[in-house]
């Protein structure tokens, strides 16, 4: 297991970050090249002003009609995504690793807050899982990959929490935490978690069409 741990915390970290960053860039560049090759007209209509106007409305909790229509989902979605992104970046235990390896560090979340945020992420995954089971219009379009994405997202947080509290075998769960975190990073560009990359573009484009051409709001 030591060997595996060394692998997971050494070369695999490099691999995960390279694949995550490289893969994300590849997907984005590929998409833009596709626009350039086949749908150049998009350049005619894309507008920074209207694109951002739409994105900002959708990034505001309850800032759109549909967010207001689903208050619980809105609260969970925003809390989930904020915690999902901020917790790993500002977790003290992660910053310590950066400090040891690269001698760089930044502000860290208090541990208690980080725990709450981790629980929010796990709770969010559970909420989305239940929603997929019980809401007919969601269940109808749900497939195995949707559950896999939820599992992939929950895994690093769940294992991280278990390792932090040393509930079971610490070494095993630390290893699982590292591996699942790497798996999630790698999955971002190549699964539908890529909505992280593409959503601003699709929303921005729709906002541009609505704002610039249709003279209508899209929120």
């Amino acid at each position, binding site marked *: 297991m030591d060997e595996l741990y060394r692998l997971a915390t050494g070369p695999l970290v490099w691999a995960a970050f390279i694949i995550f960053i490289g893969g994300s860039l590849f997907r984005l560049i590929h998409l833009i090249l596709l626009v350039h090759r086949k749908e150049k007209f998009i350049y005619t209509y894309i507008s920074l002003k209207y694109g951002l106007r739409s994105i900002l409305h959708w990034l505001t909790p309850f800032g759109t009609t549909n967010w207001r229509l689903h208050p619980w989902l809105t609260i969970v979605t925003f809390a989930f995504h904020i915690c999902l992104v901020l917790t790993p970046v500002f977790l003290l235990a992660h910053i310590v690793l950066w400090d040891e390896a690269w001698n760089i560090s930044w502000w860290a979340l208090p541990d208690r807050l980080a725990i709450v945020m981790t629980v929010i992420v796990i709770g969010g995954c559970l909420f989305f899982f239940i929603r997929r089971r019980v809401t007919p219009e969601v269940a109808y379009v749900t497939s195995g990959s949707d559950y896999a994405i939820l599992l992939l997202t929950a895994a690093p947080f769940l294992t991280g929490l278990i390792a932090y509290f040393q509930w079971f075998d610490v070494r095993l769960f630390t290893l699982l935490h590292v591996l699942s975190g790497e798996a999630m990073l790698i999955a971002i560009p190549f699964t539908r978690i890529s909505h992280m990359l*593409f959503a601003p573009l699709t929303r921005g484009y729709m906002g541009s069409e609505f704002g610039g051409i249709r*003279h209508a709001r*899209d929120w």
Partner: protein
Amino acid sequence: MTEAVPKEKIQQVDEGLERGVAGLTEEKIQKVIQRVIAGETGARLKAYVDTCIHCGLCSDACHYFLSRDRDPRYSPVGKVKQTLWEMLRKDGKVSPDFIKQARIIASTHCNLCKRCAMYCPFGIDVAYLMLVVRRICHLLGVTPLYIQDTAHSHAATFNQMWVKDDEWIDTLQWQEEEAQGELPALRIPLEKEGADIMYSVIGPEPKFQAQLIYQAAVIMNVAGVNWTMPATPGWDNSDMAMFTGDNEIMGRVKRAHFETAARLRVKRIVMGECGHAFRSVYDVGNRWLGWGMPPIPIVHAIDFYHELLSQGRIKVAKKFTETVTLHDPCNVVRGGGLHEKARDVVRWMCEGFVEMEPNREHNYCCCAGGGVINCGPPYKKQRVESNRVKAEQISAAKVKGAKIVITPCHNCHSGIEDIIHHYDLGVETKFLGDILYEVMEKPG
């Protein structure tokens, strides 16, 4: 004794689909799907399919879904699942029966109203995805018979209703004569080069709603507009080929329209109260032909009435007394932002106005647009049943006093008329022009 076939089943038979799929093989289908996906789609389709997180949040946007007791098969994403996802998953290897069902879904369970693009957090354009499905079905020759007939008419005559060239001129002259009974000096100027405005209408107006041309002529004459109508093909601004997936014919029809206006050297094209025609000249046809925006400014009737009334070129003699409500047509409201101007016009003309809820960009579609009503009688029952929410909206406006539903769009007008009859709502539908003609000051 033979068993009686339920009436609904008899209505469901659509020769256009049956004959279309009869000649299909899986190989042919796959070839066409692969060709369309590889050759005609690009970043949008890829981003929309890859980004959709299957959250179902688009569902509450759709009047089909809401009217069908939240049946997930009618949600926007549910329709994509049943059509495009399956085509992509199987790399196009789907059966003729699948294509038939995909055509029914894409062409009669979606009005391309784009309300769902306002409810999807990512702005995924399901209407575009449904148009891709329609395109595939068109290339496979599987199109509902009634709308295919109108597309054939566009191809052969450049108008939607098989109106012959001489019938068109004859109809205009007939309406001119009729209107001269009211305003003796009235003219419907044909082929007047250099006029400020070319007035264009949809095929059904000369075919069976000629009184709308009469009313427009009265409005134009009283307002002293320097206008003309073409005496050649190119007069029709409608476009059903846009909805069948026949982009080539759609482009030809739009080119004829713009070229007619260019030949007449007019400054603007003013169009009657039609939503899909506005979409075809303002948003779709121009793009197909390579213009970012229409080469000649397009002015929808709502905008034009607003201009005439706000400039005092048409004055209201006596306001319309019955309380009205306003249906916001998707193509000119979500598609053209004319909702506030429409309200101004209504308030200037009518004593009482009550809103339908939701309204403006959030209106519910009439369920007739996007070519759905043009798919004809086999689909009428499901169409009106799929818009119970609109009936409820109208009913609530009626409780607030509305007796008239103003629908400044032809498809909406017909669709809402069907809904009013089916749900026995006891209100009437009118165009803005009907009311303007009634309340305006006329000489003599």
